[in-house]
C-alpha cells in the first residue's frame, strides 16, 4: 500500500528541469530545502506536541517520566487516558469556556462594525477634519493599552472627571461583559479603522459614483456595496481580533476579574497554573481546551487572514 503510494507520487511529480549542483537544488526546492524546512517545522511543533501528549497521560506517569518517553512504547494503551479532560471540564473550565464565548463574539463584532462605518466615512465621505482625525487614528495605532488600564478602571468605577469637569457617568461597569466589550473595542479600533480604510479606500471610485447616480445614499452604498466587497478585509480583522480577545489575559483580568462566575478561559488557566503547580496532567488538558477554538478559527479562515492582512501593508 505505502509502496504504491510512493510510486504514485513519483509518477505524478512534474518532470524536473535537469539541474545539477547546489544552486538548482535550492531554487527548485530540492532536498536541502526540504530538510531545512522539516527540521524547523519539527522544532516549532515540539512544544505543542509536549502539551498534547502530556494531556492524555495519567497523573503519575506525567510526574515521574518525561512526555517524550511515550515514544519508546507508543502503542501501550494503558498509558493513555481521557480522565484529565473530564476532570478539567468539571473544575469550572466548561463555565469559563462559555464566558470566553460571551466576551469574544461581541468584542469582535462591535469594533468591526464601528470601524467599518468610520473607515467608509474616512475613505469616501466629505467632512471637515477628516484628514486630521485619521492622522490621529494612525497615531493611536501604537499607544500601549497598558497605560489606559488604571484611568479606565477608575472611569468604570467612579465616572470620569477631567480638569474638574464631569465627562462620563458612573456606570459601575467593572466586572460586566459590556465593560470588557467596550475596552476591547476601544483598543482594537485604531488597527481596525486603519486596515479597513486602506482596503475600502482602494475600491474603485466608479462603483460608488454610479451608485450615487442611481440615487443611493451613503448608508445604502455602505451596506449593500462596500460591506460585501470588503469581506476579505473584514474577515481578516475579525480573525485577528477574535484571536486577540480569546487569548487575552490582561484586559479580562482587569475589567472582568477572576471570580468564578465570570472568569474567562485564560484566567481559569492562569488560576489553575497558580493553584496546582504540579498538576501537569490537568494544566495541559486545560491548555489544550483553550487552544481548540482559536486553532479551529485560524485554520478554517487562514486564507482570509493572510489576504486581508497583507492588503494594507504590502502595497506597491
Amino acid at each position: 500500500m505505502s509502496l504504491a503510494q510512493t510510486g504514485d507520487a513519483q509518477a505524478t511529480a512534474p518532470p524536473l528541469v535537469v539541474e545539477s549542483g547546489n544552486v538548482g537544488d535550492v531554487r527548485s526546492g530540492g532536498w536541502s530545502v526540504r530538510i531545512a524546512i522539516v527540521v524547523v517545522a519539527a522544532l516549532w511543533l515540539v512544544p505543542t506536541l509536549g502539551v498534547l501528549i502530556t494531556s492524555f497521560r495519567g497523573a503519575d506517569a506525567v510526574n515521574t517520566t518525561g512526555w517524550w518517553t511515550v515514544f519508546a512504547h507508543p502503542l501501550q494503551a494503558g498509558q493513555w487516558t481521557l480522565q484529565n479532560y473530564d476532570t478539567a471540564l468539571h473544575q469550572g473550565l466548561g463555565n469559563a469556556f462559555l464566558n470566553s464565548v460571551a466576551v469574544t463574539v461581541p468584542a469582535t463584532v462591535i469594533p468591526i462594525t464601528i470601524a467599518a462605518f468610520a473607515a467608509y466615512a474616512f475613505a469616501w465621505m466629505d467632512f471637515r477634519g477628516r484628514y486630521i482625525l485619521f492622522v490621529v487614528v494612525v497615531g493611536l495605532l501604537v499607544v500601549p493599552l497598558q497605560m489606559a488600564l488604571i484611568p479606565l478602571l477608575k472611569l468604570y468605577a467612579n465616572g470620569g472627571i477631567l480638569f474638574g469637569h464631569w465627562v462620563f457617568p458612573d456606570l459601575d461597569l467593572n466586572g460586566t461583559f459590556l465593560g470588557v466589550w467596550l475596552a476591547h473595542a476601544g483598543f482594537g479600533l485604531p488597527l481596525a479603522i486603519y486596515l479597513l480604510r486602506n482596503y475600502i479606500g482602494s475600491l474603485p471610485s466608479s462603483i460608488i459614483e454610479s451608485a450615487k447616480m442611481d440615487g443611493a445614499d451613503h448608508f445604502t452604498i455602505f451596506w449593500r456595496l462596500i460591506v460585501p466587497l470588503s469581506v476579505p478585509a473584514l474577515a481578516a480583522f475579525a480573525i485577528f481580533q477574535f484571536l486577540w480577545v480569546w487569548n487575552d489575559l490582561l484586559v479580562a483580568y482587569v475589567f472582568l476579574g477572576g471570580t468564578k462566575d465570570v472568569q474567562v478561559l485564560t484566567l481559569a488557566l492562569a488560576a489553575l497554573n497558580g493553584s496546582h503547580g504540579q498538576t501537569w496532567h490537568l494544566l495541559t488538558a486545560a491548555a489544550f481546551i483553550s487552544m481548540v477554538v482559536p486553532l479551529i478559527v485560524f485554520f478554517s479562515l487562514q486564507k482570509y487572514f493572510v489576504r486581508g492582512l497583507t492588503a494594507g501593508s504590502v502595497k506597491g
Partner: protein
Amino acid sequence: MSASEPLPSPGDATTVASSGLRSLATFVLRLVGAIAIPLFGFAAMWAAVEYLRDENANRILVVIVAVVVGVGGIFALYVVMNKAIDVLPLRYRESVRPWIFVGPALVLLGLFLVYPLVNTIFISLKDQYSEAFVGLDNYTFVFTDESMLRAIRNTVGWMVIVPLAAVSLGLAFATLADRLRRGEAVAKSVIFLPMAISFAGASITWRLIYNFRPQGFGSNIGLLNGVMIGFGQNPVDWLSQHPWNNLYLMVIMIWMQTGFAMVVLSAAIKAIPDEIIEAARIDGASEWQVFRRVMVPTILPTIVVVTTYMVINALKVFDIVFVMGNAQSNGTEVIAERMIYWFFIGANYGRGAAIAVVLFVAVIPVMIWNVRRFREEESIR
C-alpha cells in the same frame, strides 16, 4: 431645539442671518449625532447588561443574551441613527451623516485611548493613592530604582533580539517554503500555529520545556533537562540563570511571532513579478545574490513594517515574563511587567503611571514615523 424649529424655507435660505442660524443648527446636530446618540446607545446596552449580572441566571442563557445584546445592539445603534437622520430636513442630512458614521468610533477612541492618556500623565505626577502632587518623584524612581533599570535594559534587549530573530527566521522560512512544490501550506501552518495560542497556554507549553526539579524533588520532566541528562550532564534551573534566562523567555516570543512575520513576508515575496527574478538568474546571479540583491530590496518596505510591529510588541511584552516565574528574583523584569506590578501588586498608582508614560514616550517616534509614512502615501495617491 426650539430655535431651529421654525426653519427657513428654501426660498430665503440665502439670507445671511438664516445661513448663520443654519450653520449653528448643523453644528448642534452634528454634536448630537456624534456624541449624544452613541452615548445613549451605550447606556441602553448597559441597561440590558444589568440582567447579565444576575449570578443565578442560567449560564448558557446568559451567554446567548450577551451575544445577542452585544452584536444586535451595535447594529441597531447605526440603523436607528441613520433613521434619525432621515427625519432631518434634506439639506442637513448629508452634512450630518459623516459624523454619524465616525461618531461612535471617535467616542470610543476618545474614551478608551485619548482620555486615559491624559489621565495617566496626571496620575504619574501624584502619590501612590493619587491624592497629592509629588512632582517628578515617580520619574526619579523609574530612572534610579535598580529593578526598574534592569527592566529598561532587559526591554531594550527584547526590542532588539526578538524582532531580529523573528523577522530573519520568518523571511528565511518564507523564502525557502516558497520553493517547495508541495506542502508549502502545511509547513507554513506549523510555523504559524503558535500565533493562535494564548500567552497563558504558551507559558504552560514552555514550562514543560524549561521545567527543573532539584535533586530529591522528583525526576526532571522538562524537555531541556531531559536532553541534558541524556547527555550525562546535570539538570539546570534554566529560568533562574541570569542573564541567560532573558534569552530563554525571548525564545517563547520568537516562537509565537515568527509565523506572523513569515505570513506577511511570504505574501510580499509572492507579489514580486517572476520576470524580475528570472532576469537576475539569466544574468548569472546565484540564488544567494537573487535573494540578497533582488528579493530583499524589493520587499524592504514590508520588512520595515513587520519589524516595526515586532519592536512595538516587544516593547509592550508583559504576559510571558509575568507568568514564567518571579521576574524580580530572576532578574527578568521588563517595563510593562513592572508597570502591572506597581499598579496591582505594589499598589502604587503614581509609579505605575510614570512607567506607563515612559512606555508611551518610547513609542512616540514610531507614532510620528507612522503618520509621516501615511502622509507620504496619501500624497502619492
